[in-house]
């Protein structure tokens, strides 16, 4: 592997391009005015994240990122958008100017969070694991889910059950005979 010429540069280029994809997707999601484009931005962002996971030797997480975030979350969001508003209205013309203070507060909070996380990640005493923690990872995740984390796992399934029951109740309420 390392005998390949410029392998360090290639690795760096791949890493940077995944980060670029992630950031571009996030920017599209945040900046565009059409909601369907921001969903696409979310999809691009998830793709970049999946690439980063794959780059960090956890293909299972990468594929789960694609399966859940692109295959399920984005599709559901677009489906919701399509059912509500097939013909998107023009963005409203603001007659009075935006208040100056609110974007400043938003930028301040976002910057504060970013600086805090950056400071934390730089100052914390991270310890690199002595060896690769898990090889297959799928098996380990399965075992962990059913032993160490079995209570949260079951609680999540309970939440999903409640959500399904709620959806059934809402969906059937119109059909009952008066």
């Amino acid at each position, binding site marked *: 592997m390392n005998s*390949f*010429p410029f392998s360090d540069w290639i690795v760096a280029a791949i890493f940077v391009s995944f980060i670029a994809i992630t950031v571009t997707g996030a920017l599209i999601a945040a900046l565009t005015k059409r909601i*369907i484009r921001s969903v696409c931005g979310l999809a691009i962002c998830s793709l970049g994240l999946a690439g980063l996971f794959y780059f960090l030797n956890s*293909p*299972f997480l990468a594929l789960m990122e*694609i399966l859940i975030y692109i295959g*399920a979350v984005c599709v559901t969001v*677009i489906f919701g958008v399509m059912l509500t508003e097939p013909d998107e209205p023009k963005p409203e013309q603001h007659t009075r100017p935006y208040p100056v203070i609110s974007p400043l507060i938003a930028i301040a909070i976002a910057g504060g969070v970013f600086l805090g996380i950056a400071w934390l990640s730089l100052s914390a005493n991270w310890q690199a694991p002595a060896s690769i923690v898990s090889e297959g990872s799928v098996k380990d995740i399965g075992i962990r889910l059913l032993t160490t984390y079995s209570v949260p796992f079951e609680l999540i399934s309970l939440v999903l059950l409640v959500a399904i029951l709620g959806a059934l109740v809402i969906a059937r309420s119109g059909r009952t005979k008066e």
Partner: protein
Amino acid sequence: MIESIFKFFTTEPYWTLTRSILYLVGICIFVAANAAYLVWVERKGAGRFQRRPGPTESGPWGLLQPPADGIKLLAKQLMAPPGSDKILFWAAPLMVIAPPLVCLAAIPFGNNVLARDLNIGLLMVFSFGSINVMALMLGGWASRNKYAIISAARVVSQNVAYEIPMLLVVITIIMVTGTMNLQEIIVQQAGGFWNWNILRGIWDFSGGGWGHIGGNLLAPVTFLIFYICMLAETNRAPFDMAEAESELVAGAFTEYGGMGFGVFFMAEYANIVVGCALATILFLGGWQSGLGSGFGTLLTSWGVIGTVIGVGFFFAKMYFLIFSVVWIRWTFPRTQFYGLLNLSWKILIPISLFTLLLTSVLLKLPRLF
């Protein structure tokens, strides 16, 4: 000179790169040629099923029809309808063709004909397969066309409904095989055709002697469910609600012309190939000959020739399934949309949940005694 260049690219470390590029080019060529000639098979088959000759004019048996169609599509002007979302409109064909190309990288066509041996190849095929829905929906939405939007809404509810039984059925296979590596799943099905997952589920001979009861007594039903879900996921008749020609013009790709339309077609056939290849791998033994552990195994493990024979077996099984897809399209009428959703939610999901339960019981039962 040429020999030294050849040697340069076929020895490590460059061989890994050369191999990847060869697979990339090979998969692209395969997808294009496959789509072109499956259209020919489809038209010829449709003709034969309706007692007419099908395409005959260009070339012998109309075999030059696909290149002619390709040139026609390439020469057409690309136009986006006014009022459409241009970026998404042109992004949709790219998003629809990319996932099957990625999926094909994980599919082992033969003994060692495999672009990337992933431990979780099965998961990869499904996760990239799930992008397809979003692409079709975006194409439909960006077109700003009533037919396209109706079709897009149908695509989503159909694919979401059929993804569930498909994944449940695949989980039973994972439970029996204990791996998500596609190559390993094929290797486990070595020997006679009775060792293929479709029959091994009923009675397992692999332990030698009289064998014992298999992991899934309903394995043939499982295969049937997988096949039906595959038809629905690729939007093929009798579940072609998404592009119902007689009611929705061309469904989600009504507004596409030229190669934009061609790419959607290519993606549809590439998806059929991925689906049928997966069915072959999971249930029909992949590249195993199925002729018994003596002669059959010898046949496919005989160096390069064995690999070629194995690939031949794989393609024979896969194209038989693809032919049956065409066969079904021209034999059965389109279902109603409510019938389609009822079939999934009221019949296929309960049955596949039952097979899941049965498999887990049968796998755990021998350990209790």
